[in-house]
């Protein structure tokens, strides 16, 4: 045995401790899982590619760091996002409210998520589509409270993508479903033991494979979903300020903020201060997937997204809730992930957000028409 360090290093290979597995048996596993997997992964709508764009020279998120966006010809996708930003900012202008009055808004929401847990077993993940509503109430001081009310499992149109998924979920002991969140006691529906306890759900480790957005955020937090959305409302709506805070590492993917620059929340143990360009894009992606509770924040994030290289205009699509809008796909630099935003061309409202990895949709949140009532109260 040589004592050459690299020979010794090679001998430390941890794979030597893993029992071998027959490839023919593994192939059968893959076949069995894809028998269920194939039909439910097909997209629910048809779209056509209208125009591909390259914003590569803009410098995207790098320019974000410097706070000086390079002037470059806008792509169709970027122009769409900027137009949406203007419309969304206009929509954020609330009517004058008197003290004691509130403005109330409500919209239906559909959330589709892929998830797994140790008890679910090997891939593929399960897919659940949850129906619910988002409602908000804003007072004269501009303070909003927002509530997301997902439906209980199997109610209000909520369903598993396939009967096979449902059967596997039941067999696994009804583990946590990221997009079919709680009742009034913040208890995750489907298993009485599944109380949100940070990264552990009733004994199920939070292994939410490939799921961005709500599942990720809640897995990293003990907050209720209501508090989560209030955090988003508290973020700056000024794009320059938002970009500055992102670069300084002051904004976490769940919307929490700090007042001083520190290590990027995505790499809290890093010796450097602030988030690099890729990390900023990843945080923006997470924030974009949060409920569109604040039109002002939506406008700021659209402007940020418009600077990202490689965005594509996908054309007009209809969401599962029957609402049509303009779809823009934004690639997340340095990863195989994309974020697809469907925007109401008339109002700038976010109609749907689809997070995909490797071309496969992982999480979809669709928003229905917004109903506004009020002002109400004295």
């Amino acid at each position, binding site marked *: *045995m040589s004592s050459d*360090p690299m020979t010794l290093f090679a001998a*430390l*290979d941890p*794979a030597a401790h893993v029992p071998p*597995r027959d490839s*023919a048996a593994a192939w059968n596993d*893959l076949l069995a899982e894809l028998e269920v997997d194939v039909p439910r992964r097909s997209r629910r709508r048809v779209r056509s590619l209208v125009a591909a764009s390259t914003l590569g020279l803009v410098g995207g998120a790098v320019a974000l760091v410097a706070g000086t966006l390079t002037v470059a010809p806008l792509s169709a996708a970027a122009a769409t996002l900027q137009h949406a930003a203007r419309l969304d900012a206009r929509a954020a202008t609330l009517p004058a409210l008197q003290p004691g009055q509130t403005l109330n808004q409500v919209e239906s929401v559909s959330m589709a998520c892929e998830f797994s847990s140790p008890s679910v077993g090997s891939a593929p993940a399960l897919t659940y589509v949850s129906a619910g509503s988002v409602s908000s109430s804003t007072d004269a001081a501009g303070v909003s409270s927002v509530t997301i009310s997902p439906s209980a499992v199997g109610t209000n149109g909520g369903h598993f993508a396939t009967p096979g998924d449902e059967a596997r979920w039941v067999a696994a002991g009804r583990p946590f479903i990221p997009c079919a969140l709680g009742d009034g006691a913040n208890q995750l529906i489907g298993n009485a033991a599944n109380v949100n306890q940070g990264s552990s759900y009733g004994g199920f480790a939070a292994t939410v494979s490939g799921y961005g957005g709500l599942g990720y955020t809640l897995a990293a937090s003990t907050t209720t979903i209501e508090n989560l959305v209030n955090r988003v409302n508290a973020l700056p709506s000024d794009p320059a300020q938002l970009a500055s805070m992102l670069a300084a590492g002051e904004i976490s993917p769940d919307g929490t903020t700090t007042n001083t620059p520190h290590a990027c929340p995505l790499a809290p143990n890093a010796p450097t201060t602030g988030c690099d360009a890729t990390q900023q894009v990843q945080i923006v992606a997470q924030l974009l997937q949060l409920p569109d509770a604040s039109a002002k924040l939506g406008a700021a994030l659209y402007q940020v997204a418009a600077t990202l290289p490689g965005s594509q205009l996908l054309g007009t699509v209809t969401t599962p809730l029957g609402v049509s809008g303009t779809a823009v796909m934004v690639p997340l630099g340095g990863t195989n992930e994309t974020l697809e935003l469907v925007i109401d061309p008339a109002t700038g409202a976010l109609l749907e957000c689809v997070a995909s990895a*490797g071309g496969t949709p992982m999480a979809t949140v669709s928003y229905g028409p917004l109903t506004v009532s009020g002002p109400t109260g004295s």
Partner: protein
Amino acid sequence: MRRTSLRGDERFELFFKEHFSRVRAYVARRVSPNLVDDVTLAAFVVAWRKFDTTVEPTLAWVLRIASLELRNGARRERRLATIAPGWLEPAAGEVEVIDVEPLREAFAALAESDQEVLRLVHWDQLSRDEVAVILGVSVNAANVRYHRAKARLESRLALGEMLTNTEVHQ
């Protein structure tokens, strides 16, 4: 064109059976044991979707897909194993007479990018061309990364030995 059925797809089946063991070993070096099969099959699911549109599917190609699966999982679930101390033990019957602790410490002290290129070369037994594909860099850059990482590992080992000797002599 979207693929609709895996059953009867002989070309992909051959590809799967040829590379399954090495992809699984690659994953096993980077995640805890209970996730190895999940992540490996997930990587092949993605590979299957892209198979027809890929000019030349290779081991390096599917390993890059697996690396992206691991990276996504790590970011969202923090499941990427920092190699647990129990994992970094010598394989049975090979190096038991040598104290591997300094090497283990020196490796753990390296940046993740250095650790990864060393894993790819010495554990995954990949060529520089394959390493370059997985890391998404040029072959030349892969070479430079490897040699720098190796030098840093050896340097840390030497530093550790020097400090140990200093302690002994004090």
